[in-house]
């Protein structure tokens, strides 16, 4: 469990990036954090594995105060994938990169080689095992960054913009995998600007704006709350936008899911046909 109690944070430059953050995240929660550029999302999640410590207030990860724990200690349970993979990758080959964390956490040789193979395969990187991460495309590098963390299977997975550089196919694979991990009891927290990805994943949503949390709720509640979205510079998903435009036809205004939308439109046309048939 993650308990965030009245946390504020000020960077050395004097920018107050978090203001009085209070939130409790339970085991096996699936959370998306959305909000405008500079809202404080990255600053917030960097607190979860102790890279940043609160200027005021406290954060407890499974009862352990992050101020009293090292990054290494916290990282075994909290795996953080950075927004920019260049901040994370430094080894000579993709394989070494993935093995690095595993070695640090004391996995044995066989387990390391098994997990490296597994992670490479999961993220479609097998052909790049012996290649330098710096010779990869932006999207491929992001997947290496994901692979390094997924390999040691942390209980809490924190992903800063996981879909950057990913095509539709990779994004969908990532979604399926995240949902599966979550259903196996892992806590997943992802920061994203991709509202369509949020609609597809259907997590709980935390909205940050101006360095505060301004709303929390289900994906459906939040993505159809237009006042909140506007404050956080987020636009509703396309399906939601469509149903708002068609509200005069008697369609509901809180739809985010493609297949729900499809069924509602089919019902609408059938309703018409039935009425005429009478």
């Amino acid at each position, binding site marked *: 469990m993650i308990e965030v109690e009245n946390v504020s944070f000020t960077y050395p*430059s004097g920018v107050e990036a978090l203001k009085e953050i209070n939130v409790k995240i339970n085991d096996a929660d699936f959370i998306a954090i959305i909000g405008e*550029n*500079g809202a404080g999302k990255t600053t917030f999640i960097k607190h979860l594995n102790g890279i940043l410590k609160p200027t005021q207030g406290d954060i407890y990860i499974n009862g352990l105060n992050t101020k009293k724990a090292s990054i290494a200690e916290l990282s075994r349970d909290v795996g953080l994938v950075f927004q920019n993979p*260049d901040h994370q990758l430094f080894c000579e080959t993709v394989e070494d990169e993935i093995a690095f964390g595993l070695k640090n956490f004391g996995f044995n040789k066989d387990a390391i080689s098994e997990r490296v193979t597994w992670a490479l395969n999961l993220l479609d990187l097998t052909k790049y095992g012996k290649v330098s991460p710096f*010779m*990869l495309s*932006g999207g491929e590098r992001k997947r290496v960054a994901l692979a390094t963390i997924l390999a040691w299977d942390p209980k809490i997975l924190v992903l800063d913009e996981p879909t950057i550089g990913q095509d539709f196919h990779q994004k969908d694979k990532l979604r399926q995998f995240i949902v599966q991990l979550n259903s196996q009891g892992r806590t997943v927290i992802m920061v994203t600007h991709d509202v*369509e990805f949020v609609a597809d994943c259907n997590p709980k949503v935390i909205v940050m704006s101006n360095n505060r949390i301004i709303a929390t709720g289900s994906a459906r509640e939040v993505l159809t709350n237009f006042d909140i979205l506007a404050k956080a510079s987020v636009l509703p998903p396309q399906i939601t936008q*469509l149903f708002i435009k068609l509200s005069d036809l008697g369609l509901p205004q809180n739809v985010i899911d493609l297949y729900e939308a499809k069924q509602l439109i089919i019902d609408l*046309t059938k309703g018409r046909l039935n009425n005429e048939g009478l």
Partner: protein
Amino acid sequence: MSIVEIRNLSYSYPGLNKPALINIDLTIEKGDFIILTGPSGCGKTTLCRCLNGLIPHFYNGDLTGDVIVTGLSVKDNPTSKIAQHVGFVFQNPENQLFALSVEKDIAFGLENLAVPRTEIRKQVDHALDLLGITNLRDNAPYELSGGQKQRVAIACILAMHPELMILDEPTSFLDPVAAKNLFEIIYALNKELGLTIILVEHRLDLLCTYANRVIIMDEGKVKADGIPRDILSSKEVLSLGIGIPKITKLYLELKASGIHLGDPPISVNEIAQEIRTLMLND
């Protein structure tokens, strides 16, 4: 009039036997607004690097074929010369920012072009305003959030008024409103000043209404090239796993269930209109 001519271009990065680009032939007209898309790793960034001279001047490797941009053969001209005509927004904004303040970073490119001081001030102010970062002008770029950095990187290039602007996944760090603003800014420049745009993007829903042409790459080759409406609903594109907009997908799903809505839509307004028409005609 064409602004880019690519003839039989192939390129391999040093030490890799698999070419990143294979026999590319492409003509881009002045005033085109092009979306360049395709699976991760297919060669989009590599193609962009050939257009501004980073390949072959900074990346070694094996280049064959011809690339002519704004009348200049890229092989035979230094990148500094090409940069006077071609603006390039990097996929990773951090590779582009190095000055001690946002303002200095934006001014830097203009100073290199020997633009007079008063004009530089004007252009810097304008670019800051367009990207909504006037309040960050004195900040150090390395102390900004990901999206703020990306806005600065874009402002740097906009301020230089290039003839051809290449943006490599320029919205990856932007919030949705900022992404939409960016598309509207460059769309206006495209319409009013005839600025040619090549924009690499995966999320086609955000911008297919602005572009007149979509080019799809796969495994180093151009696989499809046409107007957004045709490309987005073509079978070949679906099989490549390109992310078509949700409303285009809804259209295809409804079609599979026997509900026919006319032409494939590329915007929310279009599909809303088609559903309305269907309801009235039934």
